[in-house]
Every structure is written in C-alpha cells, then in structure tokens.
C-alpha cells in the first residue's frame, strides 16, 4: 500500500494544490462567501429601496446597524452586484461611496463626492474652488434636479458614526435634507457598528432622517456555524471539471471535510470559538493557518491542524510573553504579584519589589545568584517596557520629579495568567515555583 500511496503523490500535479489554495484563500480573504441566511433578508430590503429610488424617484435614507464582522458591507456589495445585472438600473444609478476613516472631514468628503459624480467643475481629477464654493456648487447641482428627470444617486456611508462627529454634521444634514426635499432622487445608506448611533445625531439631522433601520444580528446557532465551516471548505463541482485528477481529488477532499465536520474534537473547537464570537470572521481566523499549510506533502486539512490553529487562537498573550522573560524577571513578577495580594491592589514601587525579591533570594533560593541592584532595576525596566506593569497614573511622564525607583506602579498580569506561565515555563527552578504558590518565605 505504501508504494501506491507514493505513486499517488507523484501523479497529483503541483498545480492541483495551488488551485485548492487559491479557491480557499479567495474565500477567506476576499470575503465573497455567503453562508448567512439572515443577510439575504437585509439584502432584499436594500435592493427594494434602490429599485424604488430608480423606478419611482423616491428618496430614502437607511441605517444598517450590526456588530463588527456581521456582514454589513457584504449586504451592500451583494445588493449592488445584483442590481448591476439589471440593465436599466445599472445604466441610471450613480453610486457614491464614502468611508468615515478616509473622509475625515466634510471638505474631503465633498471633494470625493464631486469627484465620484464627475461634476463639471472638475478638471482632470483635480477639484478647484474652496470648500464653501464646493458645497454651494454641489447643493446647487443637486437642488436643480427633479424627481422624475434626474439620475438617481446612491450614497453609501461606511463608518457612519464617524461622519456624525464632523463639525455641525453639515454633510449629514444636507444629505438628509435633500432626501426630504424630493428633488434629485437619492438613497443614503449608512453603515455602522454602534447601536447608539441615533443619539449621536443632532436634533434637526435626526428629524430629517427617515428612521429606517436594519439590524443585522446573528440569529444562528452552533449547528449553523459548523455547517458554515464545512460550506467554507467544500469544493464546488466547477473545480472538478478542470481535469480528471481534479475530479478525483475533489471527492477525497470533500469526504475529508465531511469527516472533519463530524469529528468530535473539531466540533468542540468550533463550539468554543462560536461561544466567543458568533461572527463569521472568527471562523476565518481559525481556518487561515490550516489553509495556508496545505502543500504537496500535506494535502488535506486534518483535525490536528484545526486543533493546532485553535491553540494559537485561544492562547493567552500575556502568558506567552511571560514564557520569554528571564528567571530574574519572572521572580520580580512573582514578588509584585505577592505585593498586590498582600496590600489588596495598592500600587507598589521598585524598592518594595526589590525588598521582597531580596527576602526570597537571601532566605530561600540557593540557585539564584545575588543580583546587584542595578541589574534588578534593569529587569524591572524591561518589564515596564513590555507593559506588564504600568505606572499608576499616566501623568507620571518622563519629565516627572519622582525617581523611577519610587514611582507607584501596578501589575497588569492576572493571577491565572501568572500561574499558567509558571506551569509552562521551560526549566523553571523548583523553589521559584514554590515561592509563586505561597508568599511565605
């Protein structure tokens, strides 16, 4: 059987693997998957609104609200792709996309709008005129339109809450005012992850907003999540059409995916990840490592790969950092932990930590050599740089009068994290371990 397997390896061309990789990578990174059912409903509402804007010249405004990674952008993109297939709509509809992170103030946003609308005061991509002229020009242009003759415009404002932080909310006021005025037909769609976005709007802006809200919230359970997992890894029939080898590979691959989604440990990992975050990106995070590891020698994703990736994802970042510190630094962390426990969360300074450490190293530890004070201070500073401890109030800056030995500090490591770190620390001396357990020396 070994020889057959080996032959099989040789037979499969390397482009097969790269094909699999490209299919799966595009699913993970280009966000083209649609394994969500509730998104379809939201998409339908949006499509309906756009259609009405185009066909009847109705103006509307809409807010899409949902947690980060819940597929708000996907809804808009899918809706637009579908509408673009309709010839009548794709010809007449103008789409203006703005993002709150890019258009950080109204001036930039207006320049961007004029550019995307190809208005006539633009000469080769460069908009001239001052901010106020642009605003006056744009409003003039939009106000001259009428509901039956003008071209409908679809405004998409991503990170809508950032637009609400602009001065006077001028842009939002004007956009919403235009939707109310019944002139140029336009649909303003805002995307945000803040649930309290309505409270950010000024009263007059809020009054002009039509209060249509679409909430995208995850109403799927663990089984749907596991289903999405197998859908995400499943290869389509179109993959098998490339060659006969592809076809045979497709069968084995899909069988292995099916087997994996029924595997108890994989299901357990998926359930844990689902408990932390219900959104799809959490699934992507889990799958990135296994997918990128597919190679000629390792052709199928196994349950062990998933477990490996899960270990990385569920790992605690601070315990990981603690694995990398020296024994002296670990001892300092332990003494700080004791101080925090003894004085119930009160801040400590370097001198206290040093005394605590001396008590231990003089009485108990026979392995640790007696470090000089400057060496210990250096270790202490290194821990501060790693931000495992922090000065009590941030007002203590570099120019502060307090010497660094006496600066009040607090520890940013939980007891649980420290315990984990010591448990896994490579070659941790026994007396240090014992000292970590109890503060009595």
């Amino acid at each position, binding site marked *: 059987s070994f020889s057959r397997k080996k032959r099989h390896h040789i037979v499969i061309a390397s482009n097969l693997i790269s094909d699999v990789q490209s299919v799966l990578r595009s699913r993970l990174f280009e966000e083209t998957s649609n394994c969500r059912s509730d998104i379809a409903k939201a998409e339908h509402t949006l499509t309906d609104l756009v259609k009405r804007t185009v066909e009847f010249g109705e103006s509307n405004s809409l807010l899409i609200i949902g947690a980060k990674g819940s597929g708000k952008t996907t809804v808009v993109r899918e809706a637009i792709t579908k509408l673009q297939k309709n010839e009548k709509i794709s010809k007449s509809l103008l789409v203006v996309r703005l993002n709150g992170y890019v258009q950080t103030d109204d001036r930039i946003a207006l320049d961007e709008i004029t550019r995307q609308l190809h208005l006539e005061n633009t000469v080769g991509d460069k908009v001239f005129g001052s901010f106020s002229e642009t*605003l006056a020009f744009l409003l003039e242009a939009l106000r001259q339109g009428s509901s039956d003759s003008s071209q409908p415009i679809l405004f998409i404002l991503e990170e809508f809450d950032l637009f609400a932080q602009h001065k006077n909310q001028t842009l939002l006021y004007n956009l919403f005012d235009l939707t109310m005025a019944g002139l140029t037909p336009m649909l303003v769609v805002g995307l945000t992850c803040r649930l309290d976005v309505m409270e950010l709007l000024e009263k007059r802006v809020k009054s002009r907003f039509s209060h249509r809200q679409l909430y995208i919230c995850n109403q799927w359970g663990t089984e749907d999540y596991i289903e999405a997992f197998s859908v995400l890894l499943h290869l389509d029939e179109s993959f098998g059409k490339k060659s006969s080898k592809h076809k045979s590979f497709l069968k084995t691959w899909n069988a292995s995916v099916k087997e994996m989604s029924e595997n108890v440990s994989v299901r357990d990992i998926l359930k844990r990840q689902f408990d*932390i975050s219900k959104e799809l990106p959490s699934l992507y995070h889990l799958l990135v490592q296994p997918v990128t590891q597919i190679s000629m020698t390792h052709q199928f994703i196994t349950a062990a790969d998933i477990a490996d990736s899960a270990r990385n994802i569920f790992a605690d970042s601070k315990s990981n950092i603690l694995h990398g510190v020296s024994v002296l630094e670990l001892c300092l962390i332990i003494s700080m932990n004791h101080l925090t426990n003894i004085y119930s969360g009160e801040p400590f300074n370097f001198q206290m930590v040093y005394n605590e450490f001396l008590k231990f190293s003089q009485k108990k530890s026979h392995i640790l050599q007696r470090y000089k004070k400057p060496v210990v201070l250096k270790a202490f500073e290194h821990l501060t740089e790693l931000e495992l401890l922090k000065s009590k109030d941030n007002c203590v800056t570099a120019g502060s009068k307090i010497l660094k030995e006496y600066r009040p500090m607090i520890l940013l490591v939980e007891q649980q994290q420290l315990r984990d770190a010591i448990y896994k620390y490579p070659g941790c001396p026994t007396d240090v371990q014992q000292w970590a357990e109890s503060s009595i020396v």
Partner: protein
Amino acid sequence: MYISGVPGTGKTATVMEVVSALRQSVDDGDLEDFDYVDVNGMRLTEPHQIYVQILKKLQGLKATPNHAAQLLTQRFNQRGKKTVLLLVDELDLLWTKKQDVMYHLFDWPSHRHARLIVVAIANTMDLPERIMMSRVSSRLGLTRLSFLPYNFKQLQSIVSSRLSGIEAFDGDAVQLVARKVAAVSGDARRCLDVCRRAVEIASQQNRLKKAMKLTTIEHVHEALQEMFSSPMIMFIRNASTQEKMFLRSVVAEFRRSGLEEATIGQVLHHHNAITKLDGLQPVSVTSIIKVCNSLATARVLMLEMGRYDLYARLRLNVSIDDVLFALNSDV
C-alpha cells in the same frame, strides 16, 4: 422677526408658503415688487459665508466674505432700492465669538433706507437670551413667534389631507400613528415616515397574498415597532455565550460593589466563577478582553479609552434591568 420651534413643526414650510402667497399678490398688482433671499446656516461652511450667499443671490456677484459684508452694508444704506425679504434658517449656527454676523443681520433693517425684512428661524425659544449679546438681541426686537409641536389631531389632519382622494388608509391606523408620534415628539416628518413605511409593509403583504387591502392598524403597528424599537435588547439576546456571560459578570460586579463602574480586572473574577458554574471550558484572559471589546464597539458597554488593560474602567450603556430582561428571556 424670530421664529422658533422643534424640528418638523412646519416653520420653514410656513414661511415659504407666505412668500409664495406674497409673490402671487405681487403678480396680481396688489403689492410692490420685492426681492426674496433665503439662506440656511447648515448649508454654510462657516458663518461669514452668509454675506457671500446673500450678495450672490441679490446681485449675482462673487466676493470674499469681508468685501461682501461691505457691499451689503453700502447697499442697505442707499435709498430707493427694492424691498428685500431675507429668510435666515438655522440661525444658531451663525453664532461667532464676536457675534458680528448676527449683529449685522439685525442691524441692517434698522437703517433708515434699508427696506429689509429679516425673518430668522431656529429651534430653541430662548436663543436670543441665551447666546446673543444684549446689543444684538435688542436689535432683534420682540416680534417673536413660536411653533408648538403638533398634537395628535393636527397630525391626523395633516396625514388625511395628504391622503385626500385616495382610499389607502384605515382611519384608525392614521389615528394610531398620530397619537404615537404626538406622544414622542410631534414631528410631522416622523409621522409621514411611519405612514410611508406602513404602506410599504402593507404592499409587501398584499403582494404575498395577492389581495388588495387597506393599510390597517397592524401594518402601522409593525412600522412603529420597527422605527421606535431599541436595538440594544435585540443585540444582547443574539450575543454569543461569552458576551452574555461577560454582561452577567458586569451586573454581578455592580451588585457586589454597589457602584455603576468597574474595571475589567474586577469583572474577570466573576466571569471565571460563572464559567466554572456553567460547566464551560475556561477561556483565556485575552479572549475575554476580545469579548469585552466587541461589546464596547457596539456600545453596549462604555469602555475607557487608552492603554489601561485590566484597569480600564467600564460602565453599562443600558440599564441593568434591560440587560437582565434580555438575558433572562432566552433561558
């Protein structure tokens, strides 16, 4: 003249209507001809731009704000010009530190030959007393008019007048909308929006049933639910298990301390205890902080900004009762 009232009570629409009536009487020859200029504070990038806008609309000239102000002052000092009716919408945005813009606006009409009427519109009734200097508010005079929020009868008649001649709405449905909106804000825009949404819902259902039906009270109820509902409870209901647990621990910590604020570190202890109690696998601190951040981006929690890590303070953005209601409803 100063007109005030909350948004959506028909201030601008009324003034527009008056102006068009005046235009009509000019055409009929009952009234001398006049120029009408309207500016909106929200459509300006900066208060001084108002001079530019007025000048452009009066004389078609383009100038810098300072120059425009000079030209306008000159014009309003000359005799024998046409009467000008100037409508200033969203007056409160024209506030500057020196208040020169507002001063000019209300000073011009007091010139002998100005023949200028300024009608200013804003939301708050006490705006002149609150933000204007005494010499500005004294020029504004005492001719004031305030628009009260609509009561339900007025809203009902607004909607019915829009619907006159069309048999689309149930009488009771209109009344429900009017009463609901009047109870909250008395905003006519909101009222019409709700009706529009109700019609959409009705037509969607009619399409499914292939029957023509009036927009009834159920449709209106659904539209109202949709537009007035709070997303918080729905979000918490659909949150992931760990997110729900974190909220539960926040509530537990608040109950323990009796305060309305806690640090992440304090909440962590409760979280660990609750995880063990529910028999779930313990999660790392990093994951819990991830959960906390996702709650904070949705603004269910208010989290202190900055790199405070475990010592970042947090508080709830919803009432504890709402959280408990949302958490308990699915058990």
